Each structure stands twice: as C-alpha cells, then as structure tokens.
C-alpha cells in the first residue's frame, strides 16, 4: 500500500540534519493508505504551490460541538485516502507531562482508526491527531474517553487551556500553573465542548514573566505569575557568580530596566520598591536571586493574532491576585469577563477587540475592577473624556 507516489520534491526535505516531517509521513504511510495519500497530495502541493484542503464541514461526536475539525481533500478522486482527513484534538495534560505507557495507548488507538500522524502539540496546546474518517469518530471518542482522555476545544468556544512547566520543574513559578490549568479546564467543560460564545476564548497560564507559554501574545486571558515583597538574595552565591566570571555590572546592574540595583564588588543591593519584577536579574543569577515570598499573578486580557484589524498583546486588568485552590475568586472573575463579552460581542469578535470598541471603562465596571495606574502605560493624551452620571454624585 505504501510508496504509491514518487515524491522527488519532498525527498529533498529528508536531507539535512534536522528531523524530517517527510520521513514521519513516510513512516506512517507504510501502515496507512491515508498517510500515503497525504504524502501524494502534499507532493502535488509542492509542485503547484497551493494547498488542496477544503474548508471544514460540520463533523463531530454526539453531544459535543467541538474537538473535531472537519477536513476534506478538494481532490478526493485523485487522493481517496484523504477524501476525509479530519483532525481530532485531544486535551493534553497540564505541562505536557506524559508517561510512555499513556502515549503508547494513545498511539495504539490512533493506529487502529486514523492515519498514524500526530502533532505534539498543536498551537493551542492540544495533542492533535491528524487524519481520520467521519465514520470512525464515535469509535475514537469511545476508545479515548473510556481511558480517561477527552476532546479539546474548537470553534467559537472555550479553547483548551494550556500552561508552562510550572512548579513541576521550575524554581520561578509563582503559582501552581499545572493545577490551575487542570482546575480551569474542568470548570469550563461545558463551554469547551459546546461552542456557544461569540468567538474563541483562550486561557494560558505562565508561572512568571518569562511567559514560556506565550500567554501575553496568544491568550484572551493571560495569567502571569508574579510576587510582592523583596527579591530574596543569597550574597554568597552572588559572589560565586562574580568569581566565575560574570560581569555583574554590565550583565545585571546596567541591564536592569528600572536602575534599582547596585553592586560594590561585595554586596548586591536592590531597591525593591522601584523593581518592576521583569525577571532579568533572577533569570541570569538563578542561584543567587529568588522572587519575593508573597506569590500570585497578574491578570491580563485581550491578546490575539492579527486577523483582522491587527495583533493585540494582553492588557493588565488585575495587577495582583492570589492564585490558590479552589481558585474561587479567579473563577468568578473569569466568568464575569466572559459574561460581559458574550452579552456584547458581535460574531467573531474577540474580547480584546470588544474592549477596544466599547472602551475599557465599561469592561472594568462590568467585572468590578477599579481603575489603577498599573493598567496603563500612560494616561490619555487627548481632552475628550467621557463622564457618567455616577461620576457626578460624589
């Protein structure tokens, strides 16, 4: 069944040292006629410089409105194996931790019903299974869900929340990103599986301002760990960094964005009131410096990619919030945000775009968060500001 196609273009991409996706498709094609036709169609794309996938149709599993992305070839006679080639999103584990046993089980089911091709992982975080037929969907869902795996989000719904490695293996994590992500995913199961929102809603949880899960750029709701109080300094370790050749003045003191650090060759001092907690010094001197002891997160809202009127980075809404089980305060806040968005947005309007359209004030009032200087880079420059009746009562 395999090797049906000559693929001189794709064969070029098996050369060179970086692992080749073409080799992966060929491996799958040895067992799956679907993967073989994927290879054939892709070779054709490389020759003609265009894709041959149609828009997704409505496919899914009973009782769910998402988790399966319909994908059909526009050349089904030429490549019958990919006439249907749907994507299934499986909700990944928090922090992408797996055991070999669990991954093998996932592979066994996928080999039985699908192309044998996967993405570890998709851009949102899901474990992505690439390519199966409509008639297999119910069986696939029964096999995975009976073993404890559920589908991820798609369409105008809560999307699968995702997080960094967090306290599992990082000394900088200011809250438990793994546990929060698991809890929020469980909290929003209905919203995740049954699209009822104006558009997608993504949540990403990062343990510190390094933001390894890119929450500030890629999530409608970005939860970024931070702290209050003084950075903890181990002066002995500072000295060891100096002794081992680090130029503390050039690499740390002079690169501090707030100029709040000083080093006299013996003692490192930090004016903590002036520190903006950017993480540069801590990341470069991880043995010597640790975040302050009062831990929590900053809540930011609104980031998205450019479609349609330009990319947005998330904006600071709540400068500091405690993030501790059972996360009631945070869950209530998220529900209030989503409710305001759901009530006011046009179809396909993200929450960041809605805030731009309606203004920040109505959003903050709806979720009960007061105005604070931490929410802006600078106050407004123009004299055209609105007044509400409530502003006159005082």
């Amino acid at each position, binding site marked *: 069944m395999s090797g049906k196609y000559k693929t001189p273009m794709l064969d070029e991409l098996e050369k060179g*040292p970086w692992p080749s*996706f073409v080799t992966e498709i060929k491996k799958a094609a040895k067992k799956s006629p679907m993967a073989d036709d994927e290879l054939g169609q892709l070779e054709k794309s490389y020759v003609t410089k*265009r894709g041959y996938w149609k828009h997704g149709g409505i496919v899914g599993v009973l009782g769910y409105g998402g988790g399966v992305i319909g994908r059909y070839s526009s050349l089904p006679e030429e490549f019958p194996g990919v006439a249907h080639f749907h994507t299934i999103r499986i909700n990944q584990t928090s922090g992408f931790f797996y055991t070999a046993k669990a991954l093998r089980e996932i592979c066994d089911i996928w080999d039985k019903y699908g192309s044998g091709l996967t993405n570890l992982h998709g851009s949102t975080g899901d474990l992505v299974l690439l390519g199966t037929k409509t008639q297999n969907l119910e069986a696939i869902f029964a096999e995975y869900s009976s073993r404890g795996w559920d589908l991820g989000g798609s369409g105008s719904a809560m999307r699968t929340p995702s997080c960094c490695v967090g*306290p599992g293996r990082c000394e900088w994590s200011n809250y438990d990103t793994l546990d929060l992500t698991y809890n929020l995913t469980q909290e929003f199961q209905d919203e995740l599986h049954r699209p009822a929102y104006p558009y997608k809603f993504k949540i990403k949880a990062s343990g510190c301002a390094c933001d390894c899960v890119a929450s500030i750029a890629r999530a409608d709701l970005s939860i970024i760990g931070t702290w209050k109080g003084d950075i903890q300094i181990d002066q002995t370790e500072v000295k060891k960094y100096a002794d081992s050749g680090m130029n503390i003045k050039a*690499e740390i003191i002079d690169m501090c964005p707030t100029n709040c650090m000083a080093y006299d060759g013996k003692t490192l001092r930090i004016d903590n009131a002036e520190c903006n907690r950017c993480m540069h010094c801590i990341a470069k001197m991880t043995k010597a410096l640790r975040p302050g002891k009062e831990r929590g997160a900053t809540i930011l809202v609104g980031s998205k990619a450019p479609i349609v009127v330009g990319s947005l980075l998330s904006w600071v809404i709540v400068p500091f919030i405690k993030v501790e089980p059972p996360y009631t305060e945070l869950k209530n806040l998220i529900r209030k945000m989503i409710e305001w968005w759901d009530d006011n947005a046009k179809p396909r309007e993200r929450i960041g775009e809605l805030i731009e359209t309606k203004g920040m004030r109505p959003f903050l009032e709806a979720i009960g968060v007061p105005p604070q200087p931490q929410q802006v880079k600078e106050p407004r420059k123009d004299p055209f500001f609105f007044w509400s009746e409530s502003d006159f009562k005082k």
Partner: protein
Amino acid sequence: MALPQRQTDIGPPKYDQFLPPIIKKNYGKWKYHEVLTPGTMVHVAESGDKLYTVRVGSPRLLSTETIREICDLAEKYCDGYLRFTTRNNVEFLVSDKSKMDPLLAELKVKKYSVGGIGPRVSNVIHTQGWVHCHSACTDASGLVKAMMDELYDYFTTKELPNKVRLAVACCVNMCGAVHCSDIAIVAVHRKVPTINDEMVTKTCEIPTTIASCPTSAIRPNPAKKSVTINEEKCMYCGNCFTVCPPIDIHNPEEDGVAIVVGGKIGSLRTDPKFSKLAIPFFYNEPPRWPKVVAAIKNILETYAKHAKKHERVGEWIERIGWERFFKLTGIPFTFQHIDDFTFARDTFRTSAAFKY
C-alpha cells in the same frame, strides 16, 4: 467488536499521575537550575535532589512509530517519564544521573537533535501549511525543515547573545506566535480574491461575508446574488475566504512569504514586543526556499555579530534604530515597510534625531 462505554466532559487526566517520583517529592520546591550543555540541564531542589533533562528537537508532525521509539527511550532511561515543551521539543526527565551518558549516546546513534537550551535557536513554532490547512499559502513544515538544517549549529552548539525564537505561519491567521517572535516567517497573499458568483449564491451568507471585511471592500452584487470586491480597498487578509470559501484568495503564482523581526514575549529588561516587517516578500520556492533561508541566516548572523550579551533581536534593533538595522543587514526599505493600517500613525517618526 463492542466499543467501550464512552464518557463525556471528563476533561484531561490529572497531571500528577504523569509526574516522576522526584517531581512529586520536590513539587514547587526547586531551588535553581543550571544549563550543562546546549541540550541538557539539571534542576536542583531544596532537598538536594537533582533532576536531569535532555532536550531533543522534533518536527512536531510525528508518526506513532517515532512516538513509540521515544517511549522506548523514556522507559529505558527515565522510568517512562517524559514531557514536551511549548516549542515542540521532547524532554527526557532523568532522575538517575548515571543514565545520562548512555541516553545521550543512544540519542547520538539514533541521530536525534539534542540542543535548544540557553542562548540559542530553539525549536520553531509553526502551523500546518499545505500538510493539513485550507487557508495555507505556503508549507510551514518545509520552511522549518529548510531553515533548521541551515541553522542547525545554532540549535546544537553555537551561542548567540540571547535566545532567538523563530516561528512560521502559513497565512496571516498566524496560528503560531509569529507576531511576537525574534525572527519569523508569515505567508501572505498579494492579489484580490476571485469570486465564484454561482457558488457564493449557493453556499454563503451575504451579510456575514460583507461584515467580515475589515476595510469595507466588499459590496453586495444584487444582480448576481453575490458580492463584489473593491480592489483599491482590499488588503488580501483572506477573512472573506474563511467565511465564504467561493471567494478564493489563493494565487499560487503570486502568493509567498514575508519576514518579520524583533518580537518577544517575556518582560525581561523590556516589555513584550510585536514583530515588525523586515522583508515584505519572497516567492514560494519549494522544496527548500533557498532565498528565504539565506535571508533569515543573514538577519540572525548580523544580530549575533552586533548585539550585546543578553539583548534579544528586538532590543538590539531598538538600541541601534531601525534605520541602522536596514543598513547593517543590507535589506532594502520599501513602501510596504511604511504602515498604512490601524497602527500607522504611531510608527511615523516625529523627531529630527535619527541616523544615516
């Protein structure tokens, strides 16, 4: 054969069952970490316990055969425990230091790419491309492969001033993190879409299609029960194609890719930044896009030569100024570089202080 009983709304399995004992024991109690080599690091807990990590690059598109091979390695050296990074790397979690050298030796024999930690190029965030997406106007996986073959030493060995995050998006939907990456490729259309009126009538909702256009370029065409597009206003975003496929944005001869630079995610030193346009267009040249790859390498190596230690690409460019960036890289400046969309007025220079 009877299927097992399905369950709904169970969510993912809880993470703790996949954590190795050393992580369970030291959860949230890590003290520091050290990068040992470009592909290995050790995390030391307050208890003194040490967890070793070996990172290997993957093409993200993995066959079950390769996943099983990775599982074999994890079982042999890590009691079966492994994880993936947010950038599609595989990480072997090694609790027993004596297993590090044998694991690295086997990875070398099996030609895995060990690296990506520290001030280097890590794996590339990318999208589906022609492999599996309807709106792709290039192939993301092919670009990544061609680019990483060329930049391979910057993953496995060579140091840079700071980490360099690369990304590839196969259309302006940017399912990857192109809009905030150090150096990234985004595929772009350059021609007004063609309209199949008969199919628009049959399959599209006209008001939704009109509303989808961010520049109000789409008007109703009552005579044909379809729409027309004002060529002057269209900016080729393809949003209409997404809501109404018979409006076809693809043009294989004139589609291609742009290169953007200077974005970042973290708050370290400077605020997170968007990527900005460096090179507006290259034709698609499958299978290996040699001109695109050469342009990426030029930008990377110009940065490596001129940036200060710890400066990211965007921080370096902001320090020297964009006019200097174009001079140092030898990239021509064109009309396409001057913004004429939503962010335009913030980007025009309002000072007579600049460089030549």
